């Protein structure tokens, strides 16, 4: 049997946990849009800071770091090195950090991109980490989407830890048969091949079994679904939703005017 995996959702009673899932989804979409519109370090820093603040208020900062941010940091480092070394639209002077000759424009680009990604990913993680999966499915359904769409999105996210577990088990099994997975980049890359096929095949088999099980549990029923969990909403949420939407054209205006 597959080993125990945890859902991404972290139960809790924080303010963020109690906000209606649709409001949180709108917040995540709005933060993504803001991230696309904003273009300078300071506004993006504020946006990323807000995103992390919401995560902290939700009491899920550690889960955010554990599940996502530590991987993002690796991406940021690569971004910093690659862009810092090679991105040079204006041919400006370089500055040195240790053995590296970095280009200022590239460094600024890497910082902006890192902040943008933190804001966007952080906003969506805040939703996923603080919202009961069933509530999110229900909210997506209330927004007019098919319950199947909501379920597929959620189950895919929730099954990510299972995929990680499965990959680890396959890797352990291959190692016990003498496969080398540690050492140079070449050795590590070679070690990936015996992992991919069983992971892919095993996942496909699992998907079919899950689809059959869902069929047997009436998932594809045409009847209107009921929900044993009820969704609450704070009095201020409708106004907050309007503000989230209204802020977008304002930011676009500021950007066009050159104030951001």
């Amino acid at each position, binding site marked *: *049997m*597959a080993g*125990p*995996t*945890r*859902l991404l*959702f972290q*139960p809790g009673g924080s303010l963020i946990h109690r906000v209606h899932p649709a409001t949180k989804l709108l917040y995540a979409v709005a933060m993504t849009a803001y991230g696309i519109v904003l273009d300078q370090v300071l506004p993006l820093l504020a946006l990323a800071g807000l995103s992390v603040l919401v995560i902290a208020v939700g009491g899920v900062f550690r889960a955010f770091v554990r599940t996502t941010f530590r991987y993002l940091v690796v991406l940021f480092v690569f971004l910093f090195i690659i862009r810092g070394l090679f991105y040079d639209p204006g041919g400006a002077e370089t500055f040195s950090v240790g053995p590296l000759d970095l280009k200022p424009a590239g460094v600024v680009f890497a910082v902006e991109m890192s902040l943008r990604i933190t804001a966007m990913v952080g906003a969506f993680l805040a939703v996923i980490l603080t919202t*009961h*999966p*069933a509530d999110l*499915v229900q909210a997506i359904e209330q927004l007019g989407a098919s319950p199947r769409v909501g*379920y597929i999105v*959620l*189950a895919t996210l*929730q*099954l990510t830890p*299972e995929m990680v577990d499965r990959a680890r088990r396959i890797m352990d099994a291959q190692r016990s048969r003498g496969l080398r997975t540690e050492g140079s980049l070449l050795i590590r890359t070679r070690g990936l091949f015996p992992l991919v096929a069983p992971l892919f095949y095993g996942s496909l088999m*699992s998907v079919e*079994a*899950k*689809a*059959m*099980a*869902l*069929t*047997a*549990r*009436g*998932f*594809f*029923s*045409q*009847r*209107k*679904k*009921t*929900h*044993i*969990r009820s969704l609450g909403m704070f009095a201020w949420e409708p106004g907050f939703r309007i503000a989230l939407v209204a802020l977008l054209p304002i930011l676009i205006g500021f950007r066009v005017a050159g104030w951001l």
Partner: protein
Amino acid sequence: MALELEHTTFTYAGATQPAITDVSLRLEAGQFYGIIGSTGAGKSSLCNLLTGIAPHFLKGELGGEVRIEGVSTTQLSMEELVTRVGYVFQNPFDQLSHVTYSVEEEVAFGLQNLGIEVGEIRTRAEWALKVLGIADLRDRFPLDLSGGELQRLAVASILAMKPSVLVLDEPTSQLDPQGTREVFEAVAAMRGSGLTVVMVEHKIELLATHVDELLVMQRGRLVAQGSPRQVLSDPSVQDWEIERPQLAELALRLGRTEAAGPLPFGVEEFLVAVNLGPKDVH
């Protein structure tokens, strides 16, 4: 009559050979049936046909007819089928919805899909959890349960949908002895409730002592049906590529005769069958 197959043949889409060939059987309401057979004998395919998963979900060519409570499975939608026949699979992990956070919510998942009213869902969930002996786990996170508890949760989730037939395909294949015993005891406890139970299982010792009838599958065909003692006493057992329970086999090899009583499945029966009293065993 709960289930009937009439000259049923089924070939999965893309396959060249039928998985089930000319099977006819009748399963009475309220009885407990065990299906045995070697790997590839067609046990799971038979389950797929009994539940309507084939040909509704697993496509293929169906010959003959499969009837549930007198109605052909091809004339029923999957939605109608799931309220008549419940299906429990091998791996309880694959049966979880993965969007619930408590045992009670997991049981409610299928009922919500069917649009059952919330009060009724809670009543049914409570009932199913009690029947399976896991009511005290209702607030636990499903993935924190042991294998046996998880499989009992899977059975409860299906039972709550109030089917008249419950089909279990090797529900203990991935469980340890403790988990296996838990599942068997829970399923056996449902006898007498009017529910028809059909279970595929390799653990012949356990199956033989619990079921009313055994069905033996071999290479897609039903080769025997009868009480466990009837079926396992048959000299053709080896031809069917199945094994008797160890004590029964041992008694036969020690020269147990018909006059010595029924084919033994348990230790006490074995001692009687080979003319040994408990005092003779040290």
